[in-house]
C-alpha cells in the first residue's frame, strides 16, 4: 500500500469507487463542514475538500480536511498551484499528512480572474504535473524537491490528479494524462461528464494507450437541479461539453430535480459499462444531500468493506 487510505484499498481491490465533493465555507465555522459531512459518512470512499475553488477565498482545504476526519470521513485534500510556491506546498503536504490526510489531489487551480480577488498575484511556481512528481518524490524517494532527505515520517499519500476530457486539444488530453501518470498519479478524477459519448471516445483512447492499467480513472459527475445550471456551465465555464438534448430534457421536465437525478443515474449506468472506468466522483454543487440518495438508487450502497 502506498498510503493505506480507504480509497486506495477500494480501488486496489477492484471495487467501483465513489468519492464526493465537499466545499469548505467562506468563514471559520467548523459546523458547516460537519453538517455537510453527515450526508457522506459511511456512504463514500472519500470526500474531496476543495482548495479555494474558482479562486474564491474559503477555509483551507487542509483545515477542513482535519474537521472531516473528526467526523469520520476520509478526505481527499485538494491542492492547487495558484497560491503557493514549492516551499509552502511541501510544508502543507507535511502538515496534511500529520493531521491524518491520506489522499491528495493535485491541480493547477482556477485562475484568480474568476474569483473574488482578481487583483492577486498568482504563483504557479510549479504546474500540476510537477506537483504530482513532488508528492511522489516525498513519498517514494523520501526526499524534498530539493533532494534533501526526509529522514523519517515521510508523507504517505495516495496521489490524485485531474483531467478534462472535454478541453482542447482533444488528442493532447490523453498525452497529458500519460504525463500525469508518469509523474506519479495513482488515481484520476475527471471534469464533470455530461457528454457521455465524448467521454467514451476519450476513454477509448485511454484504453488503447493502456493507461487504464496504470491509473484508476474516476469519472466526474454533477447532478443538476435545473436547466439553468446546465446553460450557465455551457456558456460560462471553459472546457465543458454539454449536449443541447440534455438542456432540452431538463427544460421539459415537470420535476426538474427528479429529472436531474434520473439523468445522473443513467450516466452512472453508462459510465460503469465503459472499459477502464474505476469509479465515480460526485460533484453535487450546493446539493450535498442528494449524494446518499443517488448512491442508494444507483445500487452503490452499502460501500464495500476493505
Amino acid at each position, binding site marked *: 500500500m502506498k498510503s493505506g487510505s480507504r480509497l486506495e484499498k477500494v480501488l486496489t481491490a477492484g471495487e467501483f469507487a465513489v468519492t464526493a465533493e465537499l466545499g469548505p465555507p467562506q468563514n471559520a465555522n467548523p459546523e458547516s463542514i460537519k453538517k455537510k459531512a453527515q450526508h457522506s459518512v459511511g456512504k463514500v470512499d472519500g470526500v474531496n475538500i476543495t482548495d479555494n475553488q474558482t479562486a474564491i477565498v474559503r477555509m483551507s482545504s487542509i483545515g477542513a480536511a482535519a474537521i472531516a476526519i473528526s467526523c469520520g470521513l476520509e478526505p481527499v485534500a485538494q491542492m492547487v498551484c495558484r497560491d503557493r510556491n514549492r516551499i509552502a506546498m511541501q510544508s502543507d503536504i507535511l502538515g496534511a499528512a500529520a493531521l491524518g490526510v491520506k489522499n491528495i489531489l493535485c491541480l*493547477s487551480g482556477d485562475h484568480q480572474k474568476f474569483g473574488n480577488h482578481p487583483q492577486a498575484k498568482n504563483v504557479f511556481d510549479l*504546474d500540476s504535473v510537477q506537483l504530482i512528481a513532488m508528492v511522489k518524490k516525498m513519498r517514494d524517494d523520501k526526499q524534498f524537491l530539493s533532494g534533501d532527505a526526509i529522514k523519517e515520517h515521510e508523507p504517505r499519500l495516495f496521489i490524485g490528479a485531474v*483531467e*478534462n476530457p472535454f478541453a482542447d*486539444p482533444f488528442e493532447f488530453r490523453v498525452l497529458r494524462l500519460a504525463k500525469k501518470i508518469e509523474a506519479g498519479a495513482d488515481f484520476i478524477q475527471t471534469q464533470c461528464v455530461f457528454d457521455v459519448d465524448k467521454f467514451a471516445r476519450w476513454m477509448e483512447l485511454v484504453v488503447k494507450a493502456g493507461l487504464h492499467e496504470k491509473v484508476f480513472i474516476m469519472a466526474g459527475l454533477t447532478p443538476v437541479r435545473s436547466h439553468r445550471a446546465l446553460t450557465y456551465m455551457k456558456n460560462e465555464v*471553459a*472546457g465543458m461539453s454539454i449536449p443541447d438534448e440534455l438542456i432540452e430534457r431538463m427544460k421539459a421536465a415537470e420535476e426538474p430535480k427528479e429529472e436531474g437525478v434520473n439523468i445522473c443515474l443513467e450516466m452512472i449506468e453508462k459510465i460503469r459499462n465503459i472499459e477502464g472506468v474505476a469509479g465515480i466522483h460526485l460533484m453535487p454543487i450546493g446539493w450535498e444531500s442528494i449524494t446518499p440518495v443517488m448512491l442508494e438508487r444507483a445500487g452503490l450502497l452499502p460501500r464495500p468493506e476493505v
Partner: protein
Amino acid sequence: MIVADRKPLEEILNSIKDYDKIMLMGCGGCVTICFSGGAKAVELLASQIKMARKKQGRDIEIVQCSPERQCEYEFIEALKKDVEPVEAILSTACGVGVQTMAVQYPEKLTIPALNTKFMGYPVEHALWEEKCAGCGDCVLEWTGGLCPIARCAKKLLNGPCGGSSDGKCEVDAETDCVWQLIYDRLKSLNKLDNLTAVREAKDWRTSTNAGQRKVKFEEAML
C-alpha cells in the same frame, strides 16, 4: 522590443502639478515604434499638457527633446544644458529610460509618462502582444518557438490546463491558448515527442526572484 502605453492624461497632469517648467523627454527607440513615446508622441503630449494647464490658468513651459535612445548614458549626457533650467523631467521612455535619466540627472526628478508593459512585437498594425517574459532560461527550443512562460496565464510547462477551449484561453476569449499553438506547431513539425516527457520544476533563480539581474560580456570588458 519593449512595449509601453501612455498613462492617462489626468495622472500625468497630477504628477507634474508642482512644476511650471519641465523637460518632456521622448525616446527614439522602442516607444517610437509603438507610438507611445517618440518625437511625435512628445509633440502631442506637450500640446495636451499646455492646453490643460492654460485652462487651469497656469501656463507651463515645456522643453521638448527626443534623443535616439534614452536608455544609454551616451545619448543623454549631452542634454545637460537643456536639463539645467527645468524643474523636472517628464519622460515618455520605458521604465529603463526613466531610470537612466534619474541616474544621469539625480538633482532633477524624472517622472514617467508611460506604463511599461512587456517585451513583444506588433502582430498587426497598432497591436502589440507580449512574447517574452525574460525568465532567463529560454524554453523556446522545445516549444516550437512559442513561449508558455510569457503567454500562458499559469506559466504551465507540461501542456494546457483544463480551460483551453476552441484554441482560446479561459482567462480571455480574445487570447489564443499558447499550448494549443505549441501543440499544433510541434505536430506540424513532427516533434510531438517534445511534449511527452515530464518537464521538471523550473529553476526560477534565473528570473526576477533573486533581485536585480546582471549580464556581463567578459570578452568585451575593458
